[in-house]
């Protein structure tokens, strides 16, 4: 498929004035790459953008080729026009200790709890509580202000958990609020719910043009929409270029090796390549057809699509900056 095959315009898909951009997608679709490219795009023009990861994979450090991110903000790269991308890897255990200290002045208790296995419980077993801590930390970073009251970060980009868990992740706070119907945990939750469900947050879905990712994208779009989140764009990652025209392939699904051989001859390529190349061409045409079919199914998500080309690895800052151009519709 091609950019033209996508029905919805890319414009207005990503709202640069949103304070929080949540990037989700099926595993293996390139969430981290897209989140990083978006952070670079948003930082252009002198803005300061925070890029947050929450899955403990240190994927940002690897992508930007910096040492593992500690639980503090760290410069990742600069962007055009004096912009800056800052990285943060949120660790649930650190977030819990910080939370206990900040809201309850309970650092000592935290140590005790750790011995009891309570910290282990909160941060690794109970995703509700774990996700509350992670989203709570994100909320705290989004709300950080300069002395004059303006936001410290112009935007925050969250490399979020995959589509299979995204609604639970974003709504963990709400579930915990229901489980703990009164009390400080409940009160604490409201601010997070309001930010995530509010107009300042956009959720973007990353997909490949393959069966499972497309299905998950369509399902997640519906689920998130029903749950009241504001959706932004579907980012269609790693799209293969359209190289074969329908008329290159016969009704039998094959390319004519004799014609192809004659063409190759004009370019000085040996005729012994005709048959294998004809086969490969037909296979590629089949891939294109499947891509187009999956692209058509994406329409069910009813979201604007942004198409990114397949960047040959290794993907580094240069490639990310190039992808950033696509995200803001400059390419």
């Amino acid at each position: 498929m091609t950019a033209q095959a996508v029905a919805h315009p890319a414009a207005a898909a990503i709202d640069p004035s949103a304070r929080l951009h949540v990037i989700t997608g099926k595993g293996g679709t390139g969430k981290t790459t897209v989140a990083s490219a978006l952070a670079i795009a948003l930082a252009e023009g002198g803005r300061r953008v925070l890029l947050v990861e929450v899955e403990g994979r240190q994927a940002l450090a690897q992508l930007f080729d910096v040492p593992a991110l500690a639980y503090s903000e760290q410069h990742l790269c600069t962007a055009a026009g004096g912009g800056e991308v800052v990285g943060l890897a949120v660790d649930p255990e650190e977030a819990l200790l910080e939370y206990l200290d900040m809201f309850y002045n309970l650092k000592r208790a935290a140590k005790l709890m750790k011995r009891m296995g309570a910290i282990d419980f909160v941060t690794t077993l109970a995703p509700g509580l774990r996700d509350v801590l992670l989203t709570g930390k994100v909320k705290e970073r989004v709300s950080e202000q300069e002395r004059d009251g303006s936001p410290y970060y112009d935007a925050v980009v969250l490399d979020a958990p995959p589509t299979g868990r995204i609604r639970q992740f974003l709504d963990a706070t709400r579930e915990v609020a229901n489980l703990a119907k009164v009390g400080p945990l409940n009160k604490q939750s409201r601010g997070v719910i309001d930010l995530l469900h509010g107009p300042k947050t956009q959720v973007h879905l990353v997909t490949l043009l393959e069966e499972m990712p497309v299905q998950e994208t369509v399902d997640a779009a519906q689920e998130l929409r029903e749950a009241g989140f504001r959706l932004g764009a579907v980012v269609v990652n790693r799209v293969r270029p359209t190289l074969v025209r329908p008329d290159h392939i016969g009704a039998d699904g094959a390319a004519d090796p004799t014609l192809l051989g004659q063409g190759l001859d004009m370019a000085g390529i040996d005729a012994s390549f005709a048959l294998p190349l004809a086969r490969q061409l037909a296979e590629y045409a089949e891939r294109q057809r499947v891509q187009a079919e999956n692209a058509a199914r994406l329409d069910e998500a009813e979201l604007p699509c942004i198409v990114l080309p397949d960047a040959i690895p290794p993907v580094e800052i240069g490639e990310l900056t190039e992808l950033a151009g696509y995200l803001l519709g400059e390419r």
Partner: protein
Amino acid sequence: MTRSRRRSPTLDVDILINDPATRIIVTCGSGGVGKTTTAAALALRAAGAGRRTVVLTIDPARRLAQSMGLTELDNTPREVSGIDGLPEGHLFAMMLDMKRTFDEVVAAHSTPERAEAVFANPFYQALSTSFAGTQEYMAMEKLSQLAEQSEWDLIVVDTPPSRSALDFLDAPQRLGRFLDGRLIKLLAAPAKAGGKAYLRVVTPPHSPLTKAITKILGNDLLRDVSAFVSSLEAMFGGFRERAEHTYELLKAPGTAFLVVASPEPDALREASYFVERLAGENMPLAGLVINRVHSAATASNGDALPARRAEAAADALAGKPVTEQSELAEAALRVQVEIELSAQNDLRMAKRFAAAHPDVAIRLVPALPTDVHDLVGLQAVGDLLALPQ
């Protein structure tokens, strides 16, 4: 099994699946690399070779699940049939129903009245449906159950698409530790003490711990947790014991791990962690399957057509008068450039992994033009997996 000590660089899946000593194959790796397809294809191939095989899938693509006759999550192995070369009564497939598996464990370890109380408890409902690690825990629980039944020659297990590929190794023990641990016994105290005085029994009333737990969790949640725990009291010890049993099963001779990846940095990085972790745990690694490896067309005599040459030829054609022949050849050459570049990249990725892990047997599986969603497709994948390399 001694496969982990084998130094051969290629992985022979036919030796693996046909060896009567191989009882369990676990496929693992990061999401989106074709784990489920690989597991299903191996199971189909083993069944075709006459082994009575069951494949436990976690979250298969819908059409793939349907092709195996899995239309609902019913936690029961269903016979797969309808393809040539598959003897009757040899291949069964099931999809994991996490909640039902958990319910079964509870039911098996308590009285019906107690089980009812547990099922109705809000904390249990949260634990059995949405806790991190529950899916991994239950997948391993189900594996134990299947392994206890003597009817299977081979069990192929797909692992959940975890946050980290290692979760299924750790989650059962972590959850078992938690359920049997001091914390939950402490939380269980109030139901026994008959009121809110519980924390005072264990700790002084104004201790930081008492304050912390009450403050953070609130009284409602505490009540649910403690009711849950006290109704599960008979099972204490059971959870951890079962988790340890599963862990031992994974280390036992007869179990083989197959790490699955695609030729991409992230997937191979996960694969590396996995390989190292398995070695650290003394778990038997059969090898690495790298799916979706591109390979460009070569001439019948084996001659290659490098990307640079193909591109120059395509550009030359683009400069000539357009004919049907020239257009077709140009398209074919551009496709060659595209595939050849991918192929080079894929091979570089595979070589890097091989250099870093010289002992790991590797199997490259060619990229298929379309998604696999029927038994014929699975059979084709099985053939590719077993292709001599």
